[in-house]
C-alpha cells in the first residue's frame, strides 16, 4: 500500500507544501434508530462517553491554557458544562430508559431539540451556545459510534488538511499556524475555502474528486497550488521536484520584494490603487507586510461568523476604529454585512430558501432587518473620524434599495449628531455592482454614489447563470467571457461620465492574466488577497494604459 497516487483539482491558492495529512471526515449521523437495546448497557455507554469526552476536553483545555488562548478556553469550559447539564443528561437517560433506544440515538434526538430551542430564542448570543452544544454532542456521538473526530484547534504539528469542504464558520475557527496546505473535494477557485487560503497565503487545491477515499490519515502529501495537483505518498523523484519548485518560489518571492513598498503605477505612470481584502483584525499585519495601498473590501460579516454571534455597536465600533487607525489615512472600504446566500448565520434566522443565491441576502436582508443594519451603520459613522472610511452596500439590484439604505445612513448620522457624537463629513459612499441589472443600469445609480465596486464573484455567477460552488458547471464560470467584460465596461463608462471611480473586489482582481484587461476597461482600484499585492503591482507596471485598453478590446470582441 505504498503506491504513489496523483490527483488533480483546481489551483485555488498558489504555493507548494509537503507535510502529513489531517483528514476531516464528516460525522456520519446515520444512526440505528431501533428500540431493542438493553437500557442498562446503553446507560453505561452514555456514562462512558461523558467520561471520555470530558477527559479529552480537559486535555485540550490545558493545551489552550499554555497558549493563553482565552477564546478557546472559554469554548472548552462551556463544553465541560454541557456534558453534565441536567437538561441534556436527564433527557438522554429518560430516552434510553423509556424508549429502549441506543445511547447515540437518544443523544442525537435530545441534542437536536435543545439546539433548536436555543437557536429559536430571541437572543442572538444564544446561537453561539447552540453551536458549542452541537460541537460537544458531535464529539460524544463520534465516540459512541467509533468515528474519528480530529481536532483542528488542537493542532501541534505542521499538517495539510483535507476535507469535503469547510463552511465559513469552520474556516474562521482554523488555527492557521500549523496548516501548510489545504485540499478539498468540493469547491472551486471562488469558494470560501479558496478565498481564505489565498488571503492567508496557504497553498490550496480544491475540487479534488475521490480525495478522502484515496488518502489515509497521516499520509505524506505534496500540495501544488500552482498546478492544482496533489501527490499522495510521493516517491524520491517527486520529493526532489518539490524541493526544486520550492526553491524557485523562494527566489521569485525575493524578486517581488521590490514591489512591496512602491507606488502602484502603469508603465506610463498612471496611478492605480491596489488594496487588500480584510476578513478579520488579525489579518491587518499581513496587509501591512505586503504593502497594500488600502483596504479594498472589508467583509464585515466575517466578524460575526468568526465568533458566531452579532457584535453590538460598541464592539463593532472598536473593530472599525482599530482598522482605520492601523491603515493611517489610507482608504478603507468597508462593506456592510453581506449575510444570506451561502453565508447563513444562525442568529440571522434566515428561513431556508430553495434558491439562496437569489434570495434574502446582502442589502435585501439589511433592509428587512434594519435593527441589525442600523447598529452597523452607527458603529461605522462613529468610527469615521479615525481614518479614511468609505462605505459600500452589497447586492443592490435597484436604485430604490440604494436610496433606502442611504436614508437609513442619513437618519443614523442625524441621530448621532444629536447625541453629540463626531462624524467625518468626508465619507465616500459606494454601491457594489454584482447583479447584472445594476450593471446594466449603472447610469441610474451614479447620481446617488461616489464610487462603484464591481463584485465579480457574483456578477459572473449571475451573468453566466452558473453556481460558482458547483463543480459540474464550473466550465461556465468564465471571468473573461465577453458578456462579463461588456457589463464591466458599462459600469466604468457610467462612472467616467459622472465623475466617479470604479474598483473591482472579486477574486479575478488577483488573476494576473485578467488584471491588465480590467485596467484597460477603466477600473482604477483593485482589491486582492494581501500576499498577491506585489505580483499584481508588478504586472500593472509592465504595460501602458493604451496597451491594456487594446488588450481589453480584444478580449471583449474576439474575432
Amino acid at each position, binding site marked *: 500500500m505504498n503506491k504513489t497516487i496523483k490527483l488533480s483539482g483546481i489551483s485555488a491558492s498558489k504555493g507548494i507544501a509537503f507535510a502529513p495529512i489531517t483528514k476531516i471526515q464528516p460525522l456520519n449521523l446515520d444512526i440505528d434508530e431501533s428500540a431493542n437495546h438493553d437500557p442498562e448497557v446503553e446507560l453505561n455507554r452514555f456514562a462512558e462517553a461523558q467520561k471520555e469526552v470530558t477527559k479529552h476536553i480537559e486535555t485540550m483545555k490545558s493545551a489552550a491554557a499554555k497558549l493563553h488562548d482565552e477564546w478557546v478556553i472559554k469554548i472548552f*469550559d*462551556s463544553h465541560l*458544562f*454541557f456534558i453534565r*447539564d*441536567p*437538561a*441534556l443528561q436527564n433527557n438522554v437517560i429518560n430516552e434510553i430508559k423509556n424508549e429502549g433506544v441506543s445511547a447515540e440515538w437518544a443523544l442525537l434526538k435530545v441534542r437536536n431539540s*435543545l439546539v433548536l*430551542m*436555543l437557536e429559536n*430564542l*430571541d*437572543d442572538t*448570543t*444564544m446561537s453561539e*451556545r447552540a453551536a458549542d*452544544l452541537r460541537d460537544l454532542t458531535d464529539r460524544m456521538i463520534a465516540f459512541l459510534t467509533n468515528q474519528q473526530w480530529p481536532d483542528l484547534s488542537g493542532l501541534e504539528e505542521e499538517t495539510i488538511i483535507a476535507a469535503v469542504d469547510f463552511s465559513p464558520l469552520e474556516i474562521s475557527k482554523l488555527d492557521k499556524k500549523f496548516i501548510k496546505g489545504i485540499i478539498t473535494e468540493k469547491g472551486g477557485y471562488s469558494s470560501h475555502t479558496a478565498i481564505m487560503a489565498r488571503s492567508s497565503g496557504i497553498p490550496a487545491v480544491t475540487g479534488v474528486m475521490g480525495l478522502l477515499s484515496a488518502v489515509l490519515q497521516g499520509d505524506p502529501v505534496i500540495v501544488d497550488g500552482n498546478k492544482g495537483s496533489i501527490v499522495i505518498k510521493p516517491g524520491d523523484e517527486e520529493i526532489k521536484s518539490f524541493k526544486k519548485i520550492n526553491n524557485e518560489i523562494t527566489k521569485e518571492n525575493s524578486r517581488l520584494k521590490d514591489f512591496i513598498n512602491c507606488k502602484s503605477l502603469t508603465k506610463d505612470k498612471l496611478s492605480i490603487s491596489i488594496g487588500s481584502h480584510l476578513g478579520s483584525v488579525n489579518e491587518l499585519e499581513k496587509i501591512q507586510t505586503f504593502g497594500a495601498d488600502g483596504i479594498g473590501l472589508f467583509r464585515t460579516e466575517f466578524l460575526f461568523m468568526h465568533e458566531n454571534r452579532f457584535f453590538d455597536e460598541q464592539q463593532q465600533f472598536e473593530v472599525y476604529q482599530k482598522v482605520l487607525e492601523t491603515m493611517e489615512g489610507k482608504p478603507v472600504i468597508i462593506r456592510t454585512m453581506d449575510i444570506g446566500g451561502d453565508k447563513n448565520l444562525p442568529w440571522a434566522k434566515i428561513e431556508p430558501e430553495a434558491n439562496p443565491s437569489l434570495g434574502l441576502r446582502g442589502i435585501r436582508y439589511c433592509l428587512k432587518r434594519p435593527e441589525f443594519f442600523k447598529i452597523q451603520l452607527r458603529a461605522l459613522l462613529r468610527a469615521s473620524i479615525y481614518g479614511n472610511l468609505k462605505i459600500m452596500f452589497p447586492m443592490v439590484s435597484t436604485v430604490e434599495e440604494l436610496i433606502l439604505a442611504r436614508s437609513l445612513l442619513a437618519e443614523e448620522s442625524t441621530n448621532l449628531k444629536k447625541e453629540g457624537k463626531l462624524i467625518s463629513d468626508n465619507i465616500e459612499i459606494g454601491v457594489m455592482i454584482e447583479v447584472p441589472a445594476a450593471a446594466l443600469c449603472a447610469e441610474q445609480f451614479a447620481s446617488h454614489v461616489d464610487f462603484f465596486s464591481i463584485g465579480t464573484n457574483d456578477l459572473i455567477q449571475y451573468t453566466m447563470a452558473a453556481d460558482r460552488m458547483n463543480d459540474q458547471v464550473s466550465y461556465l464560470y468564465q471571468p473573461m467571457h465577453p458578456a462579463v467584460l461588456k457589463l464591466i465596461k458599462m459600469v466604468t463608462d457610467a462612472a467616467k461620465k459622472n465623475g466617479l471611480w470604479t474598483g473591482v473586489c472579486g477574486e479575478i482582481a488577483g488573476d494576473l492574466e485578467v488584471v491588465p484587461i480590467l485596467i484597460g476597461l477603466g477600473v482604477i482600484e483593485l482589491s486582492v488577497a494581501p500576499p498577491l499585492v506585489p505580483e499584481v503591482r508588478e504586472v500593472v507596471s509592465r504595460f501602458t494604459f493604451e496597451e491594456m485598453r487594446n488588450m481589453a478590446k480584444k478580449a471583449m470582441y474576439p474575432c
Partner: protein
Amino acid sequence: MTKEICVINRKGFHARPATVFVEAASEYTGEITVSYGKKKVNGKSLIALMSLSVPHDGVVTISVEGSDVEKTMKKLENILGINYE
C-alpha cells in the same frame, strides 16, 4: 425558601452570569429552581437557564430546598447582583 431577585447584568441572565450561577448551584446538594414568567427550570442546568431568556432588569424567582437554604440563597443572590460586562 423562595425569593424574587432582579438581574443586574447589562445583557441579562445568560452566558457568563448563568455559568457562574450554575457553578454555584451545582455545589449544592438540595434542589434549586429558577422561574421567570410562566417557565420554571432546574437551576443546575445551564441550557435550561439560558432557555428562560431573562433580560437586563428582569425579575426571577429563585427557590432553594434542602439544608443551609439561607446561606445558599445569599450566594445566588450575590451572583445575580453583579454586572459581568
